[in-house]
């Protein structure tokens, strides 16, 4: 069947083509279309019956002449050829080279959809990754094998934060970063892609990066394939070649919008805001490919970047993502406007795996308590700040004024740091104590009395 060309297209509309009289086509198999101009497009079978086969065309159906379109059914799913040579390469969303170098040739070609990982085979992520960013390390720690997205908004420096993490990420006690990076961009602008490329170049890691790029002006349907191709490569690097892989994907919102576009064409029943009901399952198929596996040395740590439409965290895309990922780092416009970099809004940020990766034996014994105390004190301080905005700072009690000073110092000195500033976890924790010492010891009930005696610098 692979070598037969069918010319039986009966209808074409918005990226979908219906083929008649092609019996026995496997669901999910890859398709090659040749149009009258000789241009080759690729597609996927999404519905198969003896009398009609529905094909999704990645490059779209523009300028397609039904009578002069020849279709071959390749009888296999989308596969990505894999070998050690993928390191340092740049591919398009469907896994074809876009760096002008020859395609990767390998007998090892894997279905980009992957197969679900058996929960019994997973190993729980516990190793603390030091990113050198206090707001993350101190309060929302990342662990190896975790999926921790950056929730951001238009105009916020999410790309710079992601690039800083890639540059600085290391395990405690190790000097150089030993991560390899899989970078996937879908719907990203050319300048964003260039920013990352240059950032990788500057830090000299380019030969340890694999890139999959589908830029904003490239076919939308191909975006559905891009993260899958990238993760297939990541799985190969992690679980076949024993690398620790850091996967950075941007922007998940563009992905979800592509999914919605295709769903509407297919006529799927919309759930919220026009997104299909299976958006959750579809996102989960991507995010759940992060992790560690028992008896395997490598790991996949995932940092998806997601811009929240109109900064709304309850929008379906950040909302469903938050239900799947193990926390989120939220960037805020208010801090950014005050010139704080990285503008991490710590209260809605969260790392679910932090509890098992910090503290005694991992970072420092006071870490979990200090983090909890920072959250509590800062939340309290924001309440006071809200009050001060109404009644005026002059009306505040002395204690409240100290709290306000704490909030300012916390934002400027703890959250804020240089783009090249790589703080060790000890520096971060010591800084936290320095700031907490601005508050009276008896108000700090999340830390133990011993820790207070050891680290608090104020008079009790």
């Amino acid at each position, binding site marked *: 069947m692979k070598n037969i060309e069918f010319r039986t297209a009966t209808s074409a509309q918005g990226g979908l083509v219906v083929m008649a009289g092609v019996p026995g086509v*496997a669901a999910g198999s890859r398709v090659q279309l040749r149009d009258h101009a000789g241009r080759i497009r690729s597609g996927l079978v999404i519905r198969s019956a003896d009398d009609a086969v529905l094909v999704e065309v990645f490059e779209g159906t523009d300028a397609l002449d039904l009578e002069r379109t020849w279709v071959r059914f390749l009888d296999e*799913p989308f596969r990505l050829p894999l070998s050690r040579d993928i390191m340092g390469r740049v591919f398009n969303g469907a896994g074809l080279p876009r760096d002008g170098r020859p395609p990767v040739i390998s007998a090892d070609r894997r279905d980009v959809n992957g197969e679900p990982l058996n929960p019994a085979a997973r190993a729980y992520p516990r190793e603390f990754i030091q990113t050198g960013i206090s707001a993350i390390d101190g309060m929302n720690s990342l662990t190896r094998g975790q999926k921790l997205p950056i929730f951001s908004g238009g105009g916020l420096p999410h790309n710079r934060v992601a690039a800083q993490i890639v540059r600085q990420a290391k395990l405690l006690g190790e000097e150089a970063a030993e991560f390899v990076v899989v970078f996937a961009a879908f719907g990203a602008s050319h300048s964003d892609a260039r920013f990352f490329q240059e950032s990788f170049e500057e830090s000299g890691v380019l030969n340890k990066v694999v890139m999959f790029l589908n830029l904003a002006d490239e076919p939308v349907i191909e975006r559905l394939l891009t993260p899958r191709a990238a993760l297939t490569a990541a799985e190969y690097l992690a679980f076949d070649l024993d690398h620790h892989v850091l996967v950075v994907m941007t922007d998940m919102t563009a992905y979800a919008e592509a999914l919605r576009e295709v769903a509407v064409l297919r006529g799927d029943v919309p759930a919220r805001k026009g997104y299909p009901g299976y958006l959750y399952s579809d996102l989960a198929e991507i995010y759940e490919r992060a992790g560690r596996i028992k008896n395997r040395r490598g790991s996949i740590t995932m940092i998806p970047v997601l811009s929240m439409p109109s900064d709304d965290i*309850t929008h*379906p895309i950040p909302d469903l993502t938050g239900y799947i990922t193990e926390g989120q780092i939220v960037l805020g416009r208010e801090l950014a406007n005050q010139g704080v970099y990285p503008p991490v809004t710590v209260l809605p940020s969260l790392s679910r795996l932090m509890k098992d990766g910090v503290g005694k034996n991992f970072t420092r014994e006071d870490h979990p308590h200090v983090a909890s105390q920072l959250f509590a004190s800062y939340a309290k301080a924001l309440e006071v700040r809200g009050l001060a905005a109404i009644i005026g700072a002059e009306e505040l009690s002395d204690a409240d004024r100290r709290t306000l000073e704490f909030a300012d110092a916390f934002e400027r000195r703890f959250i804020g740091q240089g783009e090249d500033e790589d703080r060790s976890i000890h520096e971060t924790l010591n800084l936290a104590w320095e700031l907490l010492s601005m508050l009276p010891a008896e108000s700090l009930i999340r830390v133990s009395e011993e820790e207070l005696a050891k680290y608090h610098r104020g008079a009790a």
Partner: protein
Amino acid sequence: MGKILEINGPLVKLDLPQTVLGEQVRVGRMGLVGEVIGRDGDTALAQLYEDTAGLRPGEVAEGLGWPLSVELGPGLLGAIFDGVQRPLKAVWEQSGDRIARGVAVPSLPRDKAWHFVPDPRRPAGSVLAGGDVLGTVQETESILHRILTPPLIHGELLELAPEGDYTLDEAIGRVRLADGRIEKLHLFHRWPVRTPRPFRQRDHAVAPLITGQRILDTFYPLLKGGKAAIPGPFGAGKTMLQQQIARWCNAEIVIYVGCGERGNELTDVLEFMPELKDPHTGRPLMERTLLVANTSNMPVVAREASIYVGITLAEYFRDQGYDVVMVADSTSRWAEALREVAGRLGQMPVEEGYPAYLGSRLAAFYERAGRVETFAGDHGSVTLIGAVSPPGGDFSEPVTSHTKEIIQTFWALSKELADARHYPAVDWLESFSGYVKSAAKWWAQEVDPNWESARAEALDLLAASEELQRIVNLVGVEALSSEQRWTLEAAGLIKEGLLQQSATDEVDSFASPEKQYALLAALLDIYRHGMKLVKLGAPARRLIQLPLLAQARRWKSQHKSEDIAELKARIAAIPDSFDPLIQEYTASPSTLREATP
């Protein structure tokens, strides 16, 4: 034998006459399994539990003759199953790290022999009815597995095997049914998951489920056999709270259903549980726990089934006379699976794309909870705790609002509390419990007769402080009277010293009912003492400076549940802290002390 006509996502149209709705089918060369959800003439519509990629029209299909069923017998405890009861550890050994399609592994191990002790009340010739106990197998050190007669069997017992070791494939008895047919009995039997298991009659739920979590047990109690929901936006600590319940609750069996949730969470439970001891028996927690896992990246149809698989397993242990808790995380994912299939079937969506039968399906599911008298005359219960994941944290969405009408205990999680890392982030104003009256009887009998009034007093205090907080937010704390400021302070003391509870702190993680009440009574005592003083004219800011207030906030993590004598001594010493102030504001402190309860 039939054949495939069409493949559309997880739905497959088959040319397969004479199948019954709900029947299991095996489809294609890969042998993928699914169930029939529609019939039209000779055409059957089936939803498959596995990914359909690679299936072709024309491949074979066959009906298996039975509905989706689970195997019930020894070997369940400590296991982890997927949404259609495939044992994931055995699947791992057979097919590797990734779940290959079409793997067929029996749910319960066939090679293991169990030591069966027959029940002496079952001589040959006696009448045997469904639910009767045939004998026992000591499955784990803490759980005695009672081997039950399959529910629909009724007849004369011809023979029951003597004490000895048997595998699941070996018959342990024979029974002659009313129509003369002879049926073999085994250590296990099958039961269709969508049919509730029968029992003799429903009972009243009487005892609270003790979870060791103060905000739950003391403020919004749940009874054994009750139904509860935990709604909350992401990051509000739903999973943590459920794991705390699974860890500490005083049920005999805990069934944890991970329905469309994160793979790492189940790994956490799998790695963590065997290391933990059951606080009530001292045995490893895994011995009383079983997991059903259909993570978010596993096929969606099996996700829909996983909830029913879980509840059927729960009913089976209930029928053995156990108190079972089933935690379903999350029912929203189950509802979404329902929606996804309904969408593909082209059914008319009502709210947010959900089918019209969402409410009735949810209600029917929660109805399977309850405390019952079993056919064997024992009492067993299934307590159902369903997590709800409302989109955007909006409790008015269909799944949350339907669930709210069905359940009796509502543990609402709040994003604001979670953001300030106040855990468990159970909102004390939005939560409710319909079981307070029944629970009060138990607390009065077992712990303290004043439980109900103390609980009410604390809740009033919290509600009053909420009002006051609104004023403070408008005009500042200085505008409050001393009395109001003290109320605010005391409410803060209750929030931080009682409601807030650290899951990671060894001492604080679990609080016995005695400790819960002692803390509650102590904090209220401080409040009342302070109030007396304020009424005597002492300004609230003097009281707020008392070191006692900071100390009392730490009591919860300083005194273990096992030795609350020390805690009680501290409580007895509360008046001492007020003495200097009392002397200042009254002529004769002794009279005041006597007047304070």
